[in-house]
């Protein structure tokens, strides 16, 4: 089943055409990777899908429903979650709170419930805390749970960013370069966990990834982007075997100039 | 016909004050990214220093303008150096900067109250009044309009033809440019803080000469000046020119309307507020904002 469909999306920044009729499909229950040279528009495409950047043209569908003009919080409620390329953590709040904020249901976030159904949301908070602990164990951050996020190193921030989408328990997650800035051993462990979630829970993953060995081991399907459009697609073997792959992959992407 | 002309003239007068008072506000707002509420007191300060000079020599209105220009510019630069620069260096966010500007406003306002008193003062000047076929004009109004328009023209040339001017305008509407343009940002900021406040001081002199002078004078026109800045588009000088005169027109037409419907003309201020709210709802970036 086609879970996410991106249909001929165009995005201009000033005179720069960053997305040029980009189209792709992510099937339910797969790990799909998006690769491409720096500046080819991958992050912008994620931002458009997630409602952070409005598309100039084209449509995005999730589970057959058009979500093109939805704000991010509504897209999240449809079952998508995004981990930013550059982590956007709440620096003054502890890591724990950063994770709790990603939970899909927390009835105490309603001001009236916060006041009048305290025992109930306290119970929920305890349950969420246990869930957060599992995420922290996985990311090897448990001892730092109560540290303000602002005190973390770059790699640790990235981990918390990924931890947040894991807390969200969505149907599909978008992760922008999950392994950037993280040591290779831990990166593989994160991928293995994501893969496990995919296999056991049917989670769909759409990742932007640079490193080819990761693609081979984990991706079911690969899209190659260049200059704002999808130029190659297929299984990792097919795409990597294509004669043009390395020239594009290694090339410096030049977004289309329209002015 | 004469009524209409008078209405237009009044709008021109109101708009000229807003333009002079708002230029610095919109430019520094654009450059430094926060609204400096102490602008109200800089307007008032201009009125007071000129008042003192006129006490000693009633002939020197133009010297008073110049004194107001220099004093307000200097006080503004000092306040940037002593108050805002340390805050910016500490990476204070927007709201603390605004609170600091209000605090500064209190320091200035009550210092003026101490030096010059809290009662209403008037300039010891008499302006020639003309009656052009029913159209009532005073020489002061003509000076005001002339000064506002020539200031606008000079600024236009400055923005168009000088490197600093180009930089100010570019950064005021798009602060991301500051890094790439390779100019000395600090100096550009200081220059803008000087010039903008200097013009606000000039506005204060005209306002005081036309009405009355008291420590809250600037505060009482701050709301329409802000409305003009937002309507024009924050950081946009050309937007401000249009917005000032539009707002002047809206107010004067509004007053006629208020009188016709028997409502209090005290609601004049509410017109600026209405404009402000409508802009926020329908066109938050203003007429010419980015």
């Amino acid at each position, binding site marked *: 089943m086609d879970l996410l469909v991106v249909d001929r999306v165009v995005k201009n920044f000033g005179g720069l055409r960053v997305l040029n009729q980009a189209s792709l499909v992510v099937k339910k229950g797969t790990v799909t990777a998006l690769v491409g040279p720096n500046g080819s528009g991958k992050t912008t495409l994620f931002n458009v899908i997630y409602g*952070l950047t409005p598309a100039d043209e084209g449509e995005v569908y999730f589970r057959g429903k058009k979500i093109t003009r939805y704000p*991010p*919080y509504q897209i999240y*409620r449809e079952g998508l*979650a*995004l981990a*930013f390329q550059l982590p*956007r*953590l*709440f*620096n003054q*709040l502890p890591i*724990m*709170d950063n994770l709790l*904020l990603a939970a899909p249901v927390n009835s*105490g*976030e309603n001001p009236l419930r*916060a006041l009048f159904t*305290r025992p109930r949301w306290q119970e929920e*908070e*305890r349950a969420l*805390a246990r869930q*957060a*602990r599992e995420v922290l164990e996985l990311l090897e951050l*448990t*001892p730092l*749970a*109560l540290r303000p996020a602002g005190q973390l190193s770059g790699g640790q921030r990235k981990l918390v960013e990924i931890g*947040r989408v894991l807390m*969200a328990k969505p149907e599909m997650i978008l992760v922008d370069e999950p392994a950037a800035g993280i040591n290779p051993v831990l990166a593989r462990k994160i991928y293995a966990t994501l893969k496990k979630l995919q296999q056991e829970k049917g989670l769909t993953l759409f990742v932007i990834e640079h490193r080819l060995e990761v693609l081979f081991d984990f991706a079911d399907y690969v899209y190659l982007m260049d200059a704002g459009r999808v130029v190659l697609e297929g299984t990792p073997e097919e795409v990597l075997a294509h004669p043009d792959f390395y020239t594009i992959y290694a090339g410096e992407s030049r977004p289309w100039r329209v002015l | 016909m004469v009524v209409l002309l008078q209405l237009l003239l009044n709008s021109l007068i109101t708009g000229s004050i807003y333009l002079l008072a708002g230029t610095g506000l919109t430019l520094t707002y654009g450059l430094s990214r926060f609204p400096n*509420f102490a602008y109200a007191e800089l307007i008032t300060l201009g009125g007071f220093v000129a008042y003192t000079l006129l006490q000693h020599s009633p002939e020197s209105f133009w010297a008073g303008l110049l004194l107001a220009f220099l004093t307000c510019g200097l006080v503004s630069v000092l306040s940037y150096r002593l*108050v805002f620069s*340390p*805050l910016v260096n*500490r990476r*204070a966010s*927007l*709201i603390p900067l*605004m*609170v*600091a500007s*209000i*605090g*500064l*406003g*209190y*320091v200035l*306002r*009550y*210092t003026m109250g*101490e030096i010059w008193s809290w009662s209403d003062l008037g300039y010891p000047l008499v302006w020639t009044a003309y009656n052009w076929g029913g159209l009532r004009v005073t020489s002061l109004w003509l000076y005001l309009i002339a000064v506002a328009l020539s200031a606008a023209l000079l600024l236009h040339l400055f923005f168009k033809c000088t490197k600093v001017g180009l930089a100010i305008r570019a950064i005021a509407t798009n602060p991301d440019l500051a890094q790439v343009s390779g100019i000395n940002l600090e100096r550009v900021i200081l220059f803008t803080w000087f010039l903008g406040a200097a013009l606000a001081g000039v506005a204060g002199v005209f306002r005081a000469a036309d009405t009355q002078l008291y420590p809250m004078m600037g*505060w009482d026109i701050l*709301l329409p000046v802000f409305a003009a800045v937002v309507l024009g588009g924050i950081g946009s000088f050309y937007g401000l020119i249009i917005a000032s005169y539009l707002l002047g027109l809206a107010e004067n037409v509004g007053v006629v309307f208020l009188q016709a419907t028997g409502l*209090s003309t*005290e*609601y004049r201020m*509410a017109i600026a*507020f209405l404009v402000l*709210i409508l802009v*926020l709802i329908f066109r938050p970036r203003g007429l010419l904002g980015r």
Partner: protein
Amino acid sequence: MDPLFYLADTLIFIGIFSLLSLSLNLEFGLTSLGNFGKVAFFMAGAYAYTLLAHAALPPYLCFLGGALIAGLIGLVITLPALRLREDYLAIVTLSFGEILRTVVKAEEGLAGGVRGISVPAVFHLGSSRADALANILLTLGCLALCFLLLQALAHSPYGRVLRAIREDEVAVKALGKNPVYFKASVLFIGSCIAGLAGGIFAQYLNFIDPTMFLPTVTFLVWMMLILGGAGNNWGALLGGVVVELMNRGTRIMKDFITLPVDPNNLQFIFFGLLVILILIFRPQGILPEGPVKTAARKEAQNWISSL
């Protein structure tokens, strides 16, 4: 004068201002909303209370109604600015403070215009000492209730979302929460509390007029919060007490010391400088903000200590 009355006056004003500074703490301290028109919502509550009291409603309904009306006004006025950058909210609220005063001044028929309006007293206990005591209890009771309420909100998942909005609205959106909804609720609650303070103020003084609601009230409330510690309800309370006492201190000093300058001018010059100096040298105020305390934090403390 009977010292009881002076004590009552002091305590009641501390109560009223602390309510205002607590409400600003919810708005600015937790959510980073720059409400520069606090006095307008205070005023709205005072006048709404008065009009309801003149309509002979029972006092508790007047207080409640005054608070709700102020809350609704707070909600409606700020809504256009909420989806925009934070400085727009500042300009709108500041302007509204001026406008509301203008309207009340201009509309003689509504509430006496510039002449002001009398407010019926709630307590008629037979002696003015008893009335003063009742007023103290009423004010401090409301203060205690609101404090507990705000403290509960601050240390709940709701309060956590507010702090998250303060830091990064886009990230909050990406995590499935609509910041506008939260900000609107904050301004509603904050304005309700300011409105309640207004009702208490009007009832205690038995008379209000537009000159009591100058922008200086807003400035003093900001000063309380910044001094006491934004983000911390205890700080807001402390600020309320300290600034009100300073205010009274200068008034007393006026009678004992003759200065070459007007003490009122001196006081506000000092207040302005104090605000600037705190912002530069101790932006967190006297009592800095602490973490959100819920069951989840306790859990985490338990596992960390068992590591």
